[in-house]
């Protein structure tokens, strides 16, 4: 059964850029900062492409944000996605709004699977996928991973980690959880959020990049989707993380243990 896959693509600061708060705490210093596709989303796009390669179907990528996000959508199209949706909104977003906007896209696109990165590496929220599943009343499988390593043969052959049944009705998802590796079966349609060890995303080939230019990207004003756009998670200010304290010498093993246990809380 061909699959229709909707994948989210967020424009974020390149993790290799140096991020620090502005002195007045009103935001981060953006001078000299580069942008790229959220790395978790890149993995979601890769997984969707592999699923499409195996089952046939269509991969639609969606981004919510300013006009600049077109770059990341094109990057996903260059990897091989079929078409893009850019929900234009220049104001602040929070996971509640994101999930509501995605819900509206789902209503229009009716995908079998929505795939998202487990979190975006800017806000590090880790909520949108779960909230979307809740809104839709769909099953969710968060933190998708796989048992084979990224050096394994299955990975070399670019096989999908998410195993969709031939009839397209169910999928097995391996998840990375605290105690180990969990496997869930979800009925489709469902929401899957992906973790780092699911796959190694391909990079866009040059022909892919050139073809992406011609692929359709539809812009949709966020205001047209009937979603309340006032954020309810509001960042009041940004601070620098605490710096390493000057060290102390401890008298003996007993004091060392107490400090590690009660003060540093690492034991």
């Amino acid at each position, binding site marked *: 059964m061909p699959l229709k896959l909707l994948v989210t693509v967020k424009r974020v*600061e390149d993790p290799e850029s140096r991020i*620090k*708060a502005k002195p007045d705490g009103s935001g*981060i210093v953006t001078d000299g900062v580069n942008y790229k596709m959220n790395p978790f989303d890149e993995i979601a796009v890769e997984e969707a492409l592999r699923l499409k390669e195996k089952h046939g179907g269509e991969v639609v990528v969606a981004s919510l944000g300013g006009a600049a996000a077109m770059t990341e959508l094109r990057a996903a199209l260059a990897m091989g996605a079929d078409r893009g949706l850019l929900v234009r909104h220049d104001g602040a977003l929070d*996971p509640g709004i994101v*999930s509501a906007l995605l819900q509206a896209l789902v209503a229009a696109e009716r995908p079998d699977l929505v795939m998202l990165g487990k979190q975006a590496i800017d*806000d*590090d*929220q*880790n*909520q949108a996928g*779960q*909230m979307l599943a*809740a*809104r839709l009343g*769909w*099953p*969710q*499988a*968060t*933190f998708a991973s796989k*048992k084979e390593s990224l050096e394994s043969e299955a990975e070399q052959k670019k096989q999908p980690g998410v195993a969709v049944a031939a009839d397209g009705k169910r999928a*097995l998802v391996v*998840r*990375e*959880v605290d*105690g*180990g*590796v*969990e*496997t*869930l*079966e*979800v*009925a489709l349609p469902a929401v899957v959020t992906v973790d780092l060890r699911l796959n190694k995303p391909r990079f866009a080939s040059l022909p892919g990049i050139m073809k992406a230019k011609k692929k359709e990207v539809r812009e949709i004003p966020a205001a047209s989707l009937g979603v309340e756009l006032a954020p*309810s*998670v*509001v*960042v*009041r*200010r*940004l*601070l*620098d*993380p605490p710096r*390493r304290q000057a*060290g*102390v*010498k*401890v008298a*003996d*093993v*007993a004091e*060392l*243990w107490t*400090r590690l246990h009660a003060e*540093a*809380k*690492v*034991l």
Partner: protein
Amino acid sequence: MSNVLVIAEQSRGTLRKATLSALTAAREVARRTGGGVSALVLGSGAGAAAEELAAHGVPVRLADAPVLAHPLAEAHAPVVAEAARAAGASWVVTAATSYGKDLLPRAAVALGAAVATEVLAIAGDGGEILLRRPMWAGNVIAEVELRTAVKAFSVRPTEFAPAARAPGGSVTPMAVAVDAASLGTRFVELQEVKSERPELTDARVVVAGGRGTKGDFGPLSALADDLGAAVGASRAAVDAGWVPNDWQVGQTGKVVAPDLYVAAGISGAIQHVAGMKGAKVIVAINKDADAPIFQIADYGLVADLFQAVPALRERLKAG
């Protein structure tokens, strides 16, 4: 009503310790809002965990049903929402474990709640509660306000001390209305991690040795096993052929950023430090009080590692 509900986490009747950190955070919120704290334990055969949590002085609702046997967000979320309503909670708190992170945002939708994840500290003045949480991989700490009537957050367990035992707790069973047939999610299996040593670069704790070990990594390895830690080494130790190459930490070895890094018999050369300075807590054990490693260690112990390390193991076992 500004009551606070803690969502507990348990496995086969054993309470996860992270829940006690969430309880501490919940109490901090309640202290500020003037509300009361209660907790919810979900599972099947989870009574012992509920009793354990109640022993920390908190009234516990126990949602115990076969349909909740596995930690499926789809099954658990409606129970959380119902319990929050029943508790008159305007705050819902859990630990930022994989269970909490999976469950909380899903439950929050049913409550119309906004969520803050991985909270490190509770800030703000008086009645206004702001939550501190890391963004951009911890390069920045944000102070966040939640503007919904009901609010939810998950806490990073390492940032809140676990609540101590206290009297006054209780366990009250709660009816569970989730219909197993309605679920689109089915638990298949859980493969628990093998207790082999973790990867050096992923490990939460790294125990590393240098020339000071004189080639005997026995005590350090034993400590590492006690802590579920990986073992690292300075180049001097690697070059001497005492340990494999891939144990080397440093500029030309691996770069690690564990929660805890124990450097024993390592002088702290810049090349070594380059590979471990990102550790959250650094402990140095060295005979030489002037060793440069002490300049960057959070806790320095001037001692012979062959005495100090076994002693530390003893102390650990004592708990």
